C-alpha cells in the first residue's frame, strides 16, 4: 500500500470494486410479488395486535434479562482482562473472543448446552468480554495519570488501580457500558432467531403463522424498548436490574443435555473427521474439500454482499447527513430525517434482513439492503451530529448549497473514516446473514452444524474470524494513510514528567 492515499481515489477504488462485484450478486426477486407481501406487512404493522401480549411480555422480559446478565458478565470479564491487555496472550484471547459474532457463538454453544440459559448468556458474554477488554483498557490508558504518579512507586498494583485508575475512568466506563447494553439488547433479540426464547423467536413464529398483527406488536414493543433504554437503565439501578435478570433467567426451564456434552464436544465433535477415523493422510484432502467447497465460495459471497452494502451505506450516509441538519432540510425535514435514521439504526441488521427476506424472497438483495440501510443510518447519524457542531460563518448559505460547499468538504474525512470503520462490521454481519439462507460464510457454517459436522463448522468459524481480523487491519491501515486516523479524541495531557537531562 502506498504511504498516503487520496480520499477521492479511495472512493473511486471502492466504487469500482462494487461495480466489479455487481455481476456476481444474485439480486433476483423471482417468483415473489414483493408489493402484495409488503402491503400485508404494512397493514400488520399499522394495526398491531396486542392480544398475544402475555407471550410477548415474557419474551421482552427474557430479552432484557439475557442482555443485562450477558453484558454484566462480559463487562466484568473484560474489566478483569483490561489492565493486562498489553500482555500478548490476553490481547490475543480478546481478539479471538470478539472476532466471532454472538450468533455464531450461540450456534456453537447450543451444541454444548442445548437451548439453555447458559447458551444465550455466554453467546453475549464471550464476544462482549473481548470487546470490553480492549475498550476499557483504552479508557484506562487515557485516564489522568497524575494521581497515580503522586502515589509513588511503592504502592501495590491493585491499590493503584482501585484508588487512582478506576475512579478516574469510571464516567467513561459507565457510559460505554450503557452503549454496550443497547447493543446487548439487539444481540439478545436476534438470538431468538437461532432458537433462544427472546423477541426474535416470537417474531419468527408470528411470521411463520402469517400473524402480521402480532409481529407488528413485537416490533413496536422492541422499538420502544431500545428507544427508552437510557430512561430505564440508570447506573444506580444496575444492581437491581441484574438481580431481576438473574431472577427471570432462573425461571427458564431447559431440556436436559446428556452428561458430558461439553467434553464430547471438545474431544470428539470438533476433531477433524479423518483424524477421528484414524486416517491422518486424509486430512489434507478433507481440508482442501472444505476450502474449495465451502470457505472460498462463502467468502466470495460475503465479500460481494459486503462491498455492495458498503456502497449503499455510504450513499445513504452521504445524503442522510444533510437530512438531519435543520439549516439544510428545514425543521420538519430534519425531524423526519431523524426519525427515519433512528428507526433504521435501532433495528439490528439481522432483523431488517429477515423482514426484507419476507418481502423479496431469498437472494442477496435482502442482505445488501439491510446492511446498507442500517449502517448508512448509523454513519449518517454520526456525521449529522458532527455537522451540527461545525461553526459556520454568519452569512453561510442554507439548503443544498450549504451541504455541497461546507458540509461535504469539511466532513469528507470523517465520512471516509466512519465508512472504513463500519466496513469491518459490515463484513462480519454479511457472514452472519448466511444463517438466513444467503450463501455467505454463515450459510456454510449453519449447513455444517445442521449436519452435525462440528469439525467442519469450527474450521469455517476460524476462517471467518481470520477474515474479520484481516479486514480490521486493512481498514486501520487505510485510515492511517488517508490521515483519518482514530475516531476517538485523544488529548495530550498537560503536566508531563520533567526529564533530567545530563548526569545526575
Amino acid at each position, binding site marked *: 500500500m502506498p504511504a498516503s492515499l487520496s480520499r477521492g481515489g479511495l472512493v473511486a477504488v471502492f466504487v469500482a470494486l462494487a461495480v466489479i462485484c455487481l455481476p456476481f450478486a444474485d439480486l433476483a426477486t423471482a417468483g415473489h410479488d414483493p408489493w402484495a407481501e409488503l402491503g400485508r406487512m404494512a397493514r400488520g404493522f399499522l394495526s398491531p395486535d396486542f392480544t398475544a401480549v402475555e407471550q410477548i411480555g415474557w419474551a421482552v422480559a427474557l430479552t432484557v434479562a439475557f442482555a443485562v446478565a450477558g453484558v454484566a458478565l462480559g463487562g466484568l470479564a473484560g474489566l478483569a482482562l483490561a489492565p493486562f491487555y498489553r500482555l500478548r496472550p490476553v490481547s490475543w484471547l480478546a481478539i479471538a473472543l470478539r472476532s466471532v459474532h454472538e450468533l455464531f457463538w450461540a450456534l456453537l454453544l447450543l451444541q454444548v448446552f442445548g437451548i439453555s440459559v447458559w447458551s444465550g448468556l455466554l453467546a453475549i458474554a464471550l464476544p462482549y468480554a473481548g470487546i470490553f477488554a480492549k475498550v476499557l483498557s483504552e479508557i484506562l490508558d487515557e485516564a489522568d495519570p497524575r494521581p497515580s504518579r503522586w502515589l509513588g512507586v511503592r504502592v501495590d498494583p491493585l491499590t493503584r488501580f482501585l*484508588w487512582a485508575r478506576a475512579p*478516574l475512568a469510571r464516567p467513561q466506563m459507565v457510559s460505554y457500558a450503557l452503549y454496550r447494553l443497547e447493543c446487548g439488547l439487539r444481540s439478545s433479540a436476534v438470538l431468538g432467531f437461532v432458537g433462544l426464547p427472546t423477541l426474535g423467536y416470537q417474531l419468527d413464529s408470528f411470521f411463520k403463522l402469517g400473524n402480521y398483527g402480532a409481529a407488528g406488536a413485537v416490533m413496536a414493543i422492541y422499538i420502544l424498548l431500545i428507544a427508552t433504554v437510557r430512561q430505564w437503565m440508570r447506573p444506580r439501578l444496575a444492581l437491581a436490574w441484574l438481580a431481576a435478570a438473574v431472577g427471570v433467567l432462573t425461571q427458564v426451564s431447559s431440556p436436559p443435555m446428556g452428561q458430558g456434552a461439553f467434553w464430547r464436544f471438545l474431544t470428539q465433535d470438533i476433531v477433524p473427521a479423518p483424524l477421528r477415523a484414524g486416517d491422518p493422510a486424509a486430512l489434507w484432502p478433507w481440508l482442501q474439500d472444505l476450502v474449495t467447497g465451502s470457505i472460498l465460495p462463502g467468502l466470495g459471497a460475503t465479500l460481494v454482499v459486503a462491498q455492495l452494502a458498503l456502497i449503499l451505506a455510504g450513499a445513504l450516509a452521504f445524503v442522510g447527513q444533510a437530512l438531519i441538519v435543520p439549516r439544510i432540510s428545514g425543521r420538519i425535514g430534519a425531524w423526519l430525517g431523524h426519525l427515519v435514521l433512528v428507526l433504521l439504526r435501532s433495528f439490528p441488521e439481522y432483523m431488517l434482513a429477515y423482514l426484507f427476506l419476507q418481502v423479496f424472497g431469498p437472494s442477496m438483495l435482502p442482505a445488501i439492503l439491510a446492511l446498507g440501510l442500517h449502517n448508512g443510518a448509523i454513519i449518517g447519524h454520526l456525521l449529522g451530529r458532527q455537522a451540527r457542531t461545525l461553526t459556520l460563518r454568519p452569512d453561510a448559505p442554507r439548503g443544498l448549497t450549504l451541504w455541497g460547499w461546507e458540509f461535504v468538504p469539511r466532513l469528507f474525512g470523517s465520512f471516509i473514516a466512519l465508512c472504513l470503520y463500519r466496513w469491518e462490521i459490515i463484513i462480519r454481519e454479511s457472514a452472519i446473514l448466511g444463517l438466513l439462507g444467503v450463501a455467505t460464510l454463515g450459510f456454510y457454517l449453519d449447513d455444517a452444524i445442521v449436519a452435525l459436522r462440528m469439525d467442519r463448522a469450527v474450521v469455517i468459524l476460524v476462517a471467518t474470524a481470520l477474515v474479520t481480523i484481516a479486514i480490521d487491519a486493512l481498514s486501520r491501515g487505510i485510515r492511517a494513510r488517508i490521515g483519518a486516523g482514530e475516531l476517538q479524541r485523544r488529548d495530550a495531557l498537560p503536566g508531563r514528567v520533567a526529564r533530567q537531562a*545530563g548526569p545526575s
Partner: protein
Amino acid sequence: MQLLDGVDLGYDGAPVLRDLRLTIIPGQRVALLGRSGSGKSTLLTALRDALLQRDMRVALVPQDHALVPQLSALRNVLMGRLDDHGALRNLRTLIRPSRADRNAGLHDLDRVGLTDQADRAVETLSGGQQQRVALARAFHRGGDVIVGDEPLSAVDPRQALALADQIHHAFPTAILALHDVAIARAFATRIIGLKDGAVLFDLPADQLDPARTEALYAR
C-alpha cells in the same frame, strides 16, 4: 545534604535550568520565587526525585493537585498513606475507612478547615478547596520534608498565612515554590530566586530586599 550537583534540568531534552548545584540543610524552610516559566516546577520535580533517592519520606503538593475528582475529600486525604499498607487494607479503606483512619483523615482536613466537606466528591469542590484537600493529603502523609508547587496559590492571603504556619509545624523541612513574596518572607528561612533558567539569588529570608525582588520579576 547535597541534592543536586551540576545537573541540567528540562523537558524532552531541552534544558530549562543549567548546571545546577543545590544543598539543603534539614530544618530549612526554602521558598522558590520566580516568574512562571522560570523553572520552579522543573527544579521541584528534580528535588523530589533526589530526596526519594535518599530514602526520605516526601509529602508532595503538585501544582495541578493530582487528586482523584470522583472520590471524596476524605478518601483523597487517606491516599497519603496508601504505600504504608497492603492491598487488602487499602481495599477495606476504599470501601469503608476504619474509625481510626477516618478520625485521622478528619483531623488533617480540620487543619485546612474542610471537615464539613469530608464526604463530598472532590470534583464538586471549588479550586481553593481542592488545593486545601491536596494540602491535607500531604499533612496526612507526613514525613521528613514537604515539597509543594504553589500550594497556597488559590487561597486568600490571610488563609495562606495560617496554612503556611500549619506547614511550618507539620514538617521539619520544607521546599515550596511560592507566588507571593510576602508569604515567602513570613514563612521561609531561605529564599531562592530563579530567572531565565538560572539562580538569580539564594539568600537567608531576612536579607531579601525590594531591589532584588524587583530584579527578579522585571522583564
